[in-house]
């Protein structure tokens, strides 16, 4: 009996992206032949609208599979690219796909500063070539009680942080999104306090599951998904996974995070996925899996989004109802 799982094959290797991106057209053509009655079978996954801004993006070379990946089927690329909370490009889920083309993800520099011996900056090209890019297929659970499975490409955040030699004062890591209303028109309205900010405890930031994502489905990140570099912390609600990062700072005190600042009773600093602690306005016990369709039941939400084995020890002795 094999004890180790065979390495997962990235979906991008199974089907060439170009063919893959056209699969709906192919299916639609097949269905058209099969007769128009097929439209009434409510086959939303088969008959979806054409993908929003889903042109092929630059592929990321030499992406390695990762044992951290889930073997659950990834959410369709159309849904991952078409259903986004990225208020910098509008507050409707469909807004970012329609408007994020104004973002210029190259050239891009990330400043790393604060409590470290070697503060400095790093360009996105160096990030892509300087760190081994892995495919990490992670569950993503939004605080709004929906979820996806996303085949990210990225590398452990800790690998980058170590290069800047954090000092013993570095107890937290703070992140900031780009502030530029020209590129991010949503920032012209004070829906949130711009720029978007997030933070992690240093042990959370160094955890091997925590990655900086540079792509998804084998290609560089689409703008609406947080190009060119975003955080992914799979055991926390999606809003922790800050997008389009321009600054990373080591801090001694707990950094501000935007949603907590906005509604402290609804969004905490930790924001660990927890089916037992409800959002004040809705239950977190179950979630809707994107792609499940109109008549599918919701699914049970797991503690730490199913990553409890790897991360529960980080919170030993903490009252997670208090530190939500």
């Amino acid at each position, binding site marked *: 009996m094999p004890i180790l799982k065979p390495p997962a094959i990235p979906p991008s290797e199974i089907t060439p992206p170009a063919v893959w991106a056209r699969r709906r057209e192919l299916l639609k053509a097949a269905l058209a032949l099969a007769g128009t009655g097929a439209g009434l079978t*409510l086959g939303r996954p088969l*008959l979806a609208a054409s993908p929003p801004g889903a042109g092929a993006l630059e592929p990321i070379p030499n992406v390695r599979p990762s044992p951290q990946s889930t073997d659950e089927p990834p959410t369709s690329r159309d849904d991952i690219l078409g*259903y986004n909370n990225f*208020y910098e490009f509008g*507050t409707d889920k469909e807004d970012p796909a329609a408007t994020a083309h104004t973002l210029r993800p190259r050239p891009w520099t990330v400043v790393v500063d604060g409590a470290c011996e070697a503060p400095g900056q790093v360009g996105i090209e160096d990030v892509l070539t300087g760190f081994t890019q892995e495919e990490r297929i992670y569950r993503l659970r939004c605080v709004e009680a929906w979820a996806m499975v996303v085949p990210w490409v990225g590398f452990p955040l800790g690998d980058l942080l170590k290069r800047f030699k954090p000092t013993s004062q570095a107890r937290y890591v703070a992140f900031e999104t780009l502030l530029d209303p020209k590129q991010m028109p949503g920032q012209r309205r004070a*829906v949130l306090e711009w720029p978007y900010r997030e933070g992690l405890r240093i042990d959370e930031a160094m955890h091997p599951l925590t990655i900086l994502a540079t792509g998804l489905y084998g290609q560089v990140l689409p703008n609406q998904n947080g190009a060119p570099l975003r955080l992914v912390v799979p055991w926390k609600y999606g809003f922790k996974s800050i997008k389009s990062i321009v600054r990373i700072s080591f801090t001694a005190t707990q950094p501000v995070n935007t949603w907590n600042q906005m509604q402290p009773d609804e969004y905490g600093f930790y924001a660990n996925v927890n089916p037992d602690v409800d959002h004040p*306005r809705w239950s977190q016990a179950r979630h*809707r899996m994107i792609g499940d369709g*109109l008549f599918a039941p919701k699914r049970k939400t797991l503690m730490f989004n199913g990553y409890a084995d790897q991360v529960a020890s980080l919170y030993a002795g903490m009252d997670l109802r208090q530190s939500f």
Partner: protein
Amino acid sequence: MARPGPRPGGQESAAVRYGKPLVFLLCLLPLALLGWRIAAGRLGANPVEAVLHFTGAWGLRLLLVTLAVTPLRRLTGRGWLLRFRRMLGLFAFFYVVLHVAVYLVLDRGLAWEEIVTDLAKRPYIMVGFAAFVLLVPLAVTSTRGWVRRLGRRWQLLHRSVYLIAVLGVLHFLWLVKADLREPLIYAAVLAVLLAARVPWPRLGGGQN
């Protein structure tokens, strides 16, 4: 307001005769659009949420349209406008019923325990559900027979529609996460429609 409109005659009767089927079809247009989106799979990544928001929005919109009839009638002096009010109100109720059904069946999967918790704990669900419950007697007593039977009390009962509209807008306002712009537009429209009913003292002159 409770009195049925004047007997149709001449121009009025034509407006009502041709207007009624037209308004009926217009009110069915959102349903047709929804049906098409379901059949064509054009509901986006989260179809349940899409159907829920769509039916809720149309319920609220038609409720506001219904509330616009009386001020519009006063403004234009066209009494026959009143004869569209029942149909508009019933269509508002129709979309609200769809909204509640989608919530109970598709969104909650008839998990009654969860639904009861929602009702007891979540203010936006509470006010939304209260609005729905209060609409039921209005829909039931919308027939000519009930108008006659209830007399003055009919008018009193149907004034609850103001409360229902306020609850409906609150329901929308309280479920939004950060961007209040859209629910505030509904709130502003409702505020205008309610203000139009306040018997403001006439300015100037001495006449009443």
